[in-house]
């Protein structure tokens, strides 16, 4: 039954323009990053690592969180329009799965985007003539970035369920990105979902995480995801539609 709910949710994305946005933003990040890299090869001498610092700065720090916010706002906009919450909330499915199917759909979308970004990174690296092996850490950055996206998705979904405006939750996510940057610099990054993304994707530091940090990273993300998912489910259960 849960699988059917997900496939119903997936069907809603057909013929939608969200795919265009999903593809454009990573491409822009890669372009900006690689142009930066190309013109600063004098100081950026660490091949793949240096390229990563440039592309991931645009992507992991700005475009990905905004992309997550856009996905969440879009998925909820489909329900805000034409009072489609009426259809969703009178379906014989548990209210909690109304939320979790949406979260899973977003997780799938972000996963696809992460892989797409990795492929773009690889292609651009080859075009720029990087001769060394692509570092194995990239897989970790991509996967951890995806994992950190879950807690941000839960927050953004909670916001978009309530806020009918498409732009407002995206604006909020932009603010959170800057707060996240501040938290990261003050070394409180582990306690703020938007900084966890920077940490996970190795945006500002490519030094690997220690085992303790890794555990901390996963535990914090799981906690944030559960916390904000519960807020969202509580909202769906109690608010009038």
């Amino acid at each position, binding site marked *: 039954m849960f699988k059917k*709910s997900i496939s*119903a949710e997936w*069907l809603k994305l057909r*013929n*939608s323009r969200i795919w265009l946005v999903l593809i454009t933003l990573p491409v822009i990040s890669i372009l900006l990053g690689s142009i930066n890299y190309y013109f600063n090869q004098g100081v950026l001498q660490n091949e793949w690592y240096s390229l990563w610092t440039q592309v991931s700065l645009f992507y992991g720090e700005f475009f990905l969180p905004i992309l997550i916010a856009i996905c969440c706002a879009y998925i909820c906009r*489909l329900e805000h329009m*034409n009072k489609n919450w009426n259809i969703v909330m*009178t379906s014989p499915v548990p209210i909690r799965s109304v939320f979790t199917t949406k979260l899973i759909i977003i997780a799938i979308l972000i996963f696809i985007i992460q892989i797409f970004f990795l492929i773009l990174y690889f292609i651009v690296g080859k075009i720029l003539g990087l001769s060394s092996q692509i570092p194995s850490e990239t897989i970790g950055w991509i996967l951890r970035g995806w994992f950190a996206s879950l807690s941000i998705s839960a927050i953004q979904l909670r916001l978009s369920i309530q806020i009918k405006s498409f732009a407002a939750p995206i604006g909020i996510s932009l603010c959170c990105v800057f707060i996240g940057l501040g938290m990261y610099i003050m070394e409180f990054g582990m306690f703020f979902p938007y900084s966890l993304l920077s940490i996970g994707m190795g945006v500002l530091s490519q030094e690997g995480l220690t085992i303790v940090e890794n555990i901390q990273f996963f535990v914090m993300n799981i906690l944030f995801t559960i916390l904000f998912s519960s807020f969202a489910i509580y909202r769906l259960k109690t608010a*009038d539609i």
Partner: protein
Amino acid sequence: MNTIVSTYNLSKYFNGICRVNEVNLTVYEGDIYGFLGPNGAGKSTTLKMLLGLIKPTKGNMVIFSKNFNKNRQLILSQTGSLIESPSYYEHLTGLENMRILQRLRNVSNKKVQEALHIVRLEKQQNKLVKHYSLGMKQRLGIAMALINFPKLLILDEPTNGLDPNGIREIRELIKSLPQRYGITVLISTHLLSEIEQIATSVGIINDGNLLFQGSMEQLKAKNKAYISIKTQDNNLAKKILLTEGYKFKQNNDRLIFEDLTDSHIAYLNKLFIGQSIDVIRIEEHRKSLEDIFLELTGKERSL
């Protein structure tokens, strides 16, 4: 008769303002229950509470003999609904919209096609809904509500925005549902004529209060005939009537009598003429449903 829906003291307050006040609704199996009231009377709010879309401030709901809060999913799986304007994903085709509900409700392809057939949308099922006319959207909404041929169908103003032909068509469809598919229908409307034509039971709500509930016959029994008499000298006539012990009311230049038998009318006529009061008119009136409705809601406003 089995009860399909019962509510007990169902109430809803929005920001402290009462919108639905202790409503006790009873809908029997096989009924077409017409839920009638002016705009803003609390019809939609009540229906949305029955579907769990709005949470009651007070009161209980029992549907299919089960408490709603404890059996939400089970009840919803046997309930179809069309609330307010029809809901749809406009970037998808009619069929794709049906498919979404099909997956959520675990329905066979055959039923999907049958529901589309009933509302005559088979030919347009592959068109994007944003290119549908309002009437087609409404019909799609009804097909979506009917998709699993539920035990209970809740329709909120289903003929809103339809042209006269469309309205007749939807009415005929709704009328046929109880016999053809064993569906109990709860339909709200602000149009008295609509209720008159299709409902077997009626609930009248105004300002959140349920003013009348009963069968269509019970409602019609309220439209008893009355006699009005106009004379040349009503003042004198009134004196005579009082001494004779008749009960009556005066409405402009008419004297209004309820429960007056033929022999009494003849007697009064003779009496007046005997006293040289010319009788100008003796008329029988019947209250229309509209009069009853206005009496109940106490408002001389358009429905």
